[in-house]
């Protein structure tokens, strides 16, 4: 699935998924949309590098992930370590779009932010974006064992934070 004959056919339809991935990685929706836009721009500039017949979605996710990592690193570890919960709580005051109105999304973003980057990207690709372990390891360039063990840690931490059974 998800193979496209041309870049132009594939990119617009993948935009909502890319935007969701950006929300799982980013501190707030504004950052997520900036990341999505940067990804699209980067992808359009380098579309000659994508090989038709291969998965366009994986290729785009990799671009986004790399841009995100660059941003995180340039922002510096110090700031990044604090970003999570309070920041996400304030999000609701920005009436920018209907997205912020969702309490569930706010909480979910805050929970994801509390994970270390290297767990968050894996939790996102597998649990939110629906990639298999092998696809995830290819997107991230990591051994599958590393993916598997980080996923265990990430989802265990999330369960502690979010709980399993209590309602929405």
């Amino acid at each position, binding site marked *: *699935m*998800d193979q*496209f004959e041309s*870049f*132009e*056919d594939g*990119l*617009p*339809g993948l*935009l*909502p*998924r890319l*935007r*969701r991935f950006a*929300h*799982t990685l980013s501190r707030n929706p504004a950052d*997520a*949309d900036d990341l*999505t*836009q940067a990804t*699209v*721009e980067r992808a*359009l500039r380098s579309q000659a590098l994508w090989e038709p017949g291969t998965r366009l979605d994986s290729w785009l996710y990799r671009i986004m992930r790399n841009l995100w990592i660059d941003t995180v690193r340039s922002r510096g570890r110090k700031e990044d370590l604090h970003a999570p919960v309070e920041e996400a709580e304030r999000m609701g005051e920005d009436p920018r*779009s*209907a*997205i912020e109105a*969702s309490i*569930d*999304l706010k*909480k*979910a973003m805050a*929970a994801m932010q509390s994970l270390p980057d290297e767990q968050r990207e894996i939790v996102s690709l*597998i*649990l*939110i974006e629906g990639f*298999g*372990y092998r696809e995830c390891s290819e997107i991230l360039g990591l051994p599958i*064992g590393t993916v*598997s*063990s980080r*996923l*265990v840690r990430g*989802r*265990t931490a*999330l*369960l502690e934070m*979010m*709980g*399993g*059974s209590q309602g*929405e």
Partner: protein
Amino acid sequence: MVHKVSDETFFAWLDGELDAGEAARVEAEVAADPRLSAMAAEHRAMHAKLKGAFDGVIDAPMPGQLLAAVGNPPQAELIDFADAKRRRERSFWPSVTQWSAMAATLAVGVLIGTLAPQARNVAPVEVRGGKMYAASALSNALTDDLASAPRGTVRIGLTFADQSGAVCRSFTDQASSGLACRDADGWRVRGLFAAPEGQTGNYRMAVGMDPNLAALVDSTMAGEPFDAAQEKAARDKGWRSSQKPSDQAGRE
């Protein structure tokens, strides 16, 4: 954990990553161990909650700057709003195949046909009673042409019904694109947008919908765009309102 299934294996099983034989073994272990069963249930619930929260992003309106960012490739806006509409109404993520097929249909609708130039160049709109209506060649094209068979310089893009049931059609002319809806007095123009610099002529405008027009279409359309058969049927009915008596169509 103190059981025989490692965490990695347990979660690989939960995620459907194990082969059949190993999955069956873990399945049996989990079934026999209340603690593992409870853990599986909790993690499944957490997963559903987490995914459900982020899935809201898929259904949220796409900001203009993101639409514009993918606006370079032909068809981008055209595809996107129809796709967004479909998702909003059915609230599921359409399969890629379904999506591509629909996009192909829409794109073909505006692409196919001759590029025969039409010499006459009269004003495409006129104002009557404070309202702007399509005139001359534009009015004729809106009344007579099907998206699959453009005849002059005007091409019809999408045909659809608005909230009141009135039939609306998007169109592209050499230097502009717009949306007109049928009322008792003719094709009332709801929006008219100039072609971006460098995109006049025939090809580019025909395939890439102006983002402003895409937004207008999106906010006007009720339901799905007409397919070729519905479009033809609507023409055969004289573009009369599909849901309300014709005397209501277009009266606001």
